[in-house]
């Protein structure tokens, strides 16, 4: 396979930038600019071009697909601070740059929680909502004793502060395309080496000493804070727009392990949930054709 290519992958047709009060956000688009828009939010530690196979499938069926790199990810600015509030504020700026009419929103993983949040804050802007394995539940959190729970939170806090202390001047570790692909493969064990190598060529930059992922080295799994999965899920029952949820049932390190029955008490009327057996957390990357067809049918 040629360097920097992947079967079915198409780089964005257009690129532009949106200013979010001094933080420059990279926006990418696939498809005819006059087609109806659909906005797609990527997951944490991803970037818009992880949609390079999935987005063209929607574009080829008559959609203007708009994605953006969340702050600190991909080609957007790194900022001093990162938070949920900042991410959804940036998202609202991107949305405003696309259209003032209601439009469909799609989100994967963290992006799925973001589009549910956007639908709750600006319901008048959302025509339909698609959540790709971004429905958090406590299913993956095992029962632990109070004492273990305190130890665990204390451990997270200590590790996080250690990380903060280590950051001054920190850069991502350089490597070859294969090395970066292998590192990412530890977080994405179900994705093919060919795909991961392609991702390096669009999500990393090459300099004299090798390739580095563009993502801000500040980003780290497992911050600490009082977040509860229910805080995200409680946005769901009130969603008035048509809702499609897609779950990948294969347990995976970055997924929530959410089962269809975990969603029963949250689903709004007429919501549709499709659970995919044998598919992991990155449903739209593992099975782009199948998920694109589900989404296209839902949006039609």
């Amino acid at each position, binding site marked *: 396979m040629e360097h920097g290519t992947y079967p079915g992958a198409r780089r964005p047709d257009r690129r532009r930038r949106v200013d*979010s*009060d*001094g*933080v420059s956000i990279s926006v990418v688009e696939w498809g005819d600019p006059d087609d109806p828009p659909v906005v797609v939010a990527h997951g944490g530690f991803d970037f818009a071009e992880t949609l390079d196979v999935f987005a063209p499938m929607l574009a080829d069926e008559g959609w203007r697909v708009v994605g953006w790199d969340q*702050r600190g990810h991909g080609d957007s600015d790194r*900022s*001093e*601070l*990162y*938070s949920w*509030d*900042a991410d*959804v*504020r*940036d998202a*609202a700026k991107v949305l405003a740059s696309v259209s003032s009419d209601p439009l469909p929103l799609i989100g994967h993983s963290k992006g799925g929680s973001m589009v549910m*949040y956007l639908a*709750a*804050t*600006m319901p008048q802007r959302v025509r339909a909502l698609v959540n790709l394995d971004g429905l958090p539940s406590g299913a993956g959190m095992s029962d632990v004793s109070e004492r273990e*729970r*305190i*130890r665990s*939170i*204390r451990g997270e*806090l*200590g590790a*996080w*502060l250690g990380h*903060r*202390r280590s*950051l*001054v001047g920190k850069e991502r570790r350089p490597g070859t395309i294969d090395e970066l692909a292998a590192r990412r493969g530890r977080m994405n064990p179900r994705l093919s080496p060919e795909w991961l190598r392609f991702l390096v060529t669009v999500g990393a930059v090459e300099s004299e000493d090798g390739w580095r992922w563009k993502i801000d080295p*500040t980003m780290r799994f497992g*911050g*600490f*804070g*009082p977040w*509860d999965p229910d*805080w995200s899920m409680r*946005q769901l029952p009130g969603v008035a727009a048509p809702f499609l949820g897609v779950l990948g049932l294969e347990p995976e390190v970055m997924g929530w392990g959410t089962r269809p029955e975990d969603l029963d008490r949250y689903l709004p009327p007429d919501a549709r949930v499709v659970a995919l057996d044998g598919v992991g957390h990155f449903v739209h990357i593992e099975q782009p054709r199948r998920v694109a067809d589900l989404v296209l049918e839902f949006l039609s």
Partner: protein
Amino acid sequence: MTGDEPTWLQHHRIRLALHRLDPGRADLRPLLLLHGLGEATPAAVPAHIHWPGPVLGLDFTGHGRSTVPTGGGYTAEILVADVDTALEHTGPVTVVGRGLGAYIGLLAAAARPDTVRGVVLVDGPGLAGGGTEPGSPSIVAPFPGAQAPPDPYALVELARDPRPSSYAQTFVRFLLEESDLDEPIVVDTLVRPPWVQAVSAEPGVVERPLRDALARYAELD
């Protein structure tokens, strides 16, 4: 105020101002003041604070003379890391936190039970935070371009930061278990948002006027 230039500490991309309000006796443990939401370290040691050692004050990110970041993104956790950056420089201190600084001081003490030799929680702006859980979701943005301290993003974002009682309790319990002090946490607030009620209800947390608390902490090694 001594008129000294603050000590500048680097917390990743943020430059933090650590002020020395009173040199005190250099062989004694410093007192570290943490200001409330929207405040800054005071120019002089407040009249009601009596401490024999050095008196220091940290300006949080976006406050006082510390860096005002671009485009917001504040969390209580990042301010805890501000304090941790200061602790790495100061070594053992006793902490007095006002309002938001009380909450941050408590978490920092739990994170570094050997370095924080007593924390006193007192009234001040931002004590309540955003309540025990998020309210209706909203997208908050101050007037853009107002990049001066106190950062308007800090004011709107930290005023809605959720503080579940169980979360604060977790850190209190850890601190009580880990600290070798008999009374590592003193509460002296008139205002009692749920997280403060939960903290003060924990066996081992004491209620005592600030003046007395500082007098006792000053006696500790």
